[in-house]
């Protein structure tokens, strides 16, 4: 203890604590900068990341030879030609009826799930002859992919694979084929129904592979892998590893987060940084932007990924693509237990490189610590630090927070009935301008200004810390985007420059304005105010919470800070005026 004692005495002797308190504002900014800096500068550099490995030994990817080749190609083409004809001449209902007959010919039990809103889904269960029927693997191929292209190749591949699988005696898990109308709402609705109300079921689904091979081309260039689940969930890294392993084993290249072909071979700091940032973006916007299909399975303890064939002229043929789901199914089939429990949190820097949670979590922690320090700054660094806990200022600020929360909640609900993004944005711009407009007319008491902000930053810190492990990317992005609000200053003398600075900071940290601006910058498919409709849809169709986190986690704090930015007057002057 002598060491700690010495340290303590040293701290006391050089007066570190008062220095620390007086520098809280700068330290808070420093925390945020360190967090961001670590993320950008440190994590993608050598020595910070690790090569991926297969954690569950039973998976044994690519250990069995894949036989999906040769004459299976003929059969695949046979089915594909038919599907290509159906695409033009018949409805999905009729196609489902016909495909259902094909599947039944090789012993697959089929059923059609009808959802009035999102269309019907054909699914079939191949009962594993060796299994006990308690577990299943799903292979899904939506009729239309995320871009609205007809997924002819993917659906034909899924059907051919089922036929091919039915000849193998090795299966210990049932295999489920799912042909839904689209990869988003319709597939999600089927997954929900499978766990609640379907009569034909095949046990709990362990893994799902969504096949996306639009068009009738025999050839393709490379494979795009999508793995981001909803609400920050990711599939077990083992499944992603198996997919990457198998794909590269078959000689194809893997692209993560839609990286173009020309950048796939790069392995330097820039490429890793790009993949990581794209990964964070995709994770935050998962369910909100285009859905590839794997999102639909997220959350039901199902590990899911989407395999997408890119290009039409490349060196690989469609059966090579089919060997990925084949070998992956063989791997998952080997599982006696579950996927390893500690392998769900990761950031991928390249198909074969990852950062584990212990390394990257600190960055978001630093940002939320920044908020805590900002809150402390508001409490300690003014002459009202000594106010008793139950003083009228503290009680009022808690009440004000409750009002802000209620207002935020009403906003979140109201938007479902009046989805007017322009109105929402303009209201928030006007509200941000409130301190500017009121600067000469209404003033608030100074302690209120400090306490409101303190409560706002504390709440923000609590939200971010709770969100850290659940949805790292969202917590980080939200923390960084909301951070400008901690830089607002309490002004007393109607200083125009400071008022304008406050206005800019408040405007920048508004949840809706910031979301709108950033999404417009990074995601061209959600340009304009489309992101708000997408947020609502993501909640209604997929159960993605992001809208509520914005509204209930971020908006109340912003409201409080905006109110607290109204010109303040000292208690003494206020008394004098009275």
């Amino acid at each position, binding site marked *: 203890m002598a060491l700690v004692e010495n340290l303590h005495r040293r701290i006391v002797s050089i007066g570190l604590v008062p220095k620390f308190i007086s520098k809280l504002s700068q330290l808070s900014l420093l925390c945020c900068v360190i967090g961001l800096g670590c993320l950008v500068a440190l994590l993608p550099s050598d020595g910070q990341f690790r090569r991926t490995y297969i954690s569950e030994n039973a998976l044994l990817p690519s250990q069995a030879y894949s036989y999906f080749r040769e004459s299976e190609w003929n059969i695949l083409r046979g089915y*594909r030609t038919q599907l290509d004809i159906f695409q033009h001449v018949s409805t999905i209902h009729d196609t489902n009826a016909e495909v259902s007959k094909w599947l039944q010919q090789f*012993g697959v*039990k089929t059923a059609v799930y009808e959802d009035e809103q999102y269309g019907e889904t054909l699914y079939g269960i191949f009962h594993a002859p060796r299994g006990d029927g308690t577990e299943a693997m799903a292979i899904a191929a939506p009729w239309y992919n995320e871009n609205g292209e007809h997924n002819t190749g993917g659906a034909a591949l899924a059907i051919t694979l089922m036929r091919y699988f039915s000849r193998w*005696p090795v299966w210990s898990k049932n295999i489920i084929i799912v042909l839904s109308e689209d990869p988003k709402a319709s597939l999600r609705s089927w997954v929900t129904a499978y766990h609640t109300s379907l009569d*034909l079921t095949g046990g709990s689904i362990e893994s799902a592979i969504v096949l996306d091979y639009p068009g009738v081309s025999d050839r393709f260039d490379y494979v795009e892998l999508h793995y981001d689940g909803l609400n920050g969930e990711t599939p077990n890294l083992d499944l992603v590893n198996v997919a990457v392993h198998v794909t590269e084993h078959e000689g194809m290249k893997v692209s993560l987060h839609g990286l173009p072909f020309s950048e796939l071979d790069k392995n330097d700091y820039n490429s890793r940084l790009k993949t990581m940032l794209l990964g964070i973006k995709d994770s935050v916007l998962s369910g909100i932007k285009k859905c590839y299909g794997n999102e639909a399975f997220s959350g039901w303890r199902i590990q899911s990924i989407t395999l997408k064939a890119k290009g039409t002229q490349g060196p690989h043929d469609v059966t090579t693509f089919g060997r990925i789901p084949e070998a992956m199914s063989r791997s998952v089939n080997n599982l006696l237990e579950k996927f390893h429990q*500690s392998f769900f949190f990761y950031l991928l820097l390249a198909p074969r490189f990852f950062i584990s949670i212990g390394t990257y979590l600190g960055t978001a922690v630093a940002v939320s610590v920044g908020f805590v320090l900002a809150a402390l700054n508001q409490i300690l660094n003014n002459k009202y630090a000594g106010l008793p806990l139950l003083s009228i200022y503290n009680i009022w600020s808690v009440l004000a927070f409750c009002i802000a929360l209620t207002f935020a909640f009403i906003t979140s609900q109201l938007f479902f009935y009046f989805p007017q993004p322009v109105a929402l944005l303009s209201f928030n711009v006007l509200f941000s301008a409130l301190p500017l407009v009121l600067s000469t007319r209404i003033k608030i008491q100074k302690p209120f200004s400090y306490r409101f902000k303190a409560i706002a930053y504390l709440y923000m810190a609590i939200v971010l810390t709770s969100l850290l492990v659940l949805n790292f990317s969202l917590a980080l992005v939200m923390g960084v985007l909301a951070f400008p609000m901690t830089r607002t200053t309490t002004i007393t003398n109607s200083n125009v420059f400071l008022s304008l600075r406050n206005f800019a900071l408040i405007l920048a940290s508004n949840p809706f304005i910031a979301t709108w601006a950033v999404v417009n910058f990074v995601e061209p498919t959600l340009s304009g105010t489309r992101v708000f409709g997408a947020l609502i849809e993501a909640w209604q169709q997929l159960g993605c919470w992001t809208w509520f986190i914005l509204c209930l986690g971020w908006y109340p704090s912003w409201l409080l800070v905006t109110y607290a930015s109204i010109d303040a007057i000292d208690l003494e002057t206020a008394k004098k005026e009275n």
Partner: protein
Amino acid sequence: MKLHSWISVLLLVYKVTAELEADVFPVDNEVDSIQQEVIQETRKNGTDESSSVPPSSELLSLEDPVQYNFQENLNLTPLPNNFLLASFQFYMQSETFGVNRNEHESNVYSHHTVFPKPVGPIMSQTNTRQLHLRFTHGLWDSQEWGQLPHSGLKSGGNGVELWAVIEGPSKEKAMQSWITLANSLSGLFCASINFIDSSKTTFPVSSFLPTEDDAIPLFNENSSLYLIRAALANEPICTENLTPFVKLLPTRGKSGISSLLDGHKIFDSNWHSLSIDVNTICEDNTGECHYSMEEFVETVVNVPNSLARADRPIPKPLGGDELRCDTNKPHDAFQCFPLPGSREVDFNISKLFGKKICGSSLLGKTSSKICAHVPSNWNVMVQVGDLLFTTDDNCFNVNSNEPHDVHFETSDSGNVLISKETPLHVSRALTGYGQDRGGLRSVFRNPSNQPVELVYFESLPWFMRVYLSSLALESDDSDLTLDSVVKSTFYSPARDRERPTHLERKLVIPPNSTLALSFQFDKSLLKYAEYPPDANHGFEIEAAVATITSPERYEARSSSLLLYLSTPDFSMPYNVIILTSTVMGLAFGTLFNLISKQLLTLEEADRILASTSPKAKLLRLKGKIIGLLKRNNTKPAKIAKSE
């Protein structure tokens, strides 16, 4: 128990007479007389009743072989979609034995012929009067294949299922016998039946009841009979279970139809079931009893797949010229829309089972019988040596010792004998999202035109905390209410680690309807050591049993389920131990310092530190050395001075 009390009375009479005889004759004579009885019985069983030669020479005579109460049949039934049901049935009977009510006369039943030697002692030791054991695996496709063989009475749910009628003076004693029985069977069949304990055992009330004509004898009028049942859904059925099954047969798989029983082929199937039923049957008038045993091995194989596997063990893609393409659709060297499997079938069962039947059983009273159940467009022939035979009813007796084979051929394998439609389809699934609670949803589909009455038996492990009040009915017919479907409920609530939830509901499913019954449950946390070694696999929930009582007797089972409980990360305890130890260490250090050290003000401490700290000590040492050196330097000068 009233039903059988008269047997006990009879037995009592028998016992009194035996005692009277014992009074007259010396004891060893009595033993002789019993032995003679057994011999006579053997002779009675034999064909040559008038033979005067002693039994031992009968065994040696090849012209008149001894024949026993053993019968074996093989029924081969093609099913739709090129499946084939092969049902091996063996019936055997033990020698009679008197009911021994004196404890010291325990060896009355010592001579066994065709009846398996290990079964008798297990039955008598545990006072088991009826024993039913099922090993089943796979999915019986009742939509395509119709009713289960033997109306489902001979097959269990996935895994092992065991139920028995045990005689005992009290429920506790019967339970003890049951555990002994489970342990003995576990050793006998190389299965984990020994994992049956009270937390898996139920006492069924209206399911699994013995039929009316099974008059179960009661050996002691003071005791009663208990029906006890348990199932192990996570038991994989494999060859090591089949081998003991075959070993129970008098032919040992060496001759007769049992020579076809090869584990590799039997288990390479879509559905298979091994069953054993042992009954104790007592004669009304003599009070003599015998065991009768039925041993069934049933398997459903996909004929084209099995035949293809015999030729090519790996189902590689077919060669381009072997593909069967639909000529009405585009087809060329590059594409082919596949036709469904060929309906022309031509195969020998030796190819399916890997070998031929090695002649007759040589033991049975009746010869081994092979029957094919096919419509008229099938040709079934038995091949003995090089010769092929047919019969009108497609049944063949295996008489000679030549290898036998059965040949099937038809041009339309889709045409098979229509089996009766299942009176009820039952399926069950787990529902729910999280790790802490879930739901169980059973779907009943009645395809017939008459209402189906059934008893729905569920035994759920104690860690599923069932909410009976949440029972809900889902049905398209809005007039249907829960009360009109569920007629009565028997519920024995679970007790933690001691007893499973036991539910038996009498249901009536209206004609041509599908309905679902669901209820919710909580998942409880297990103790650290209660997780099995493969904790992350989840827990298997045994199949539910639907015993249909009307319009016909039938038993259907749902599939088993896999329940996830929240499972700890088992490496965590070590982290916890390390963290706790660190915290404990720190706390101890601080506390120890507080107790053992003196409290001083900062100034005092600084003063003491100034004199005792290593730095101060070093300084003092330095001073001393310097002082010493100075003295040394000055001494010679002094000497010089003095000189």
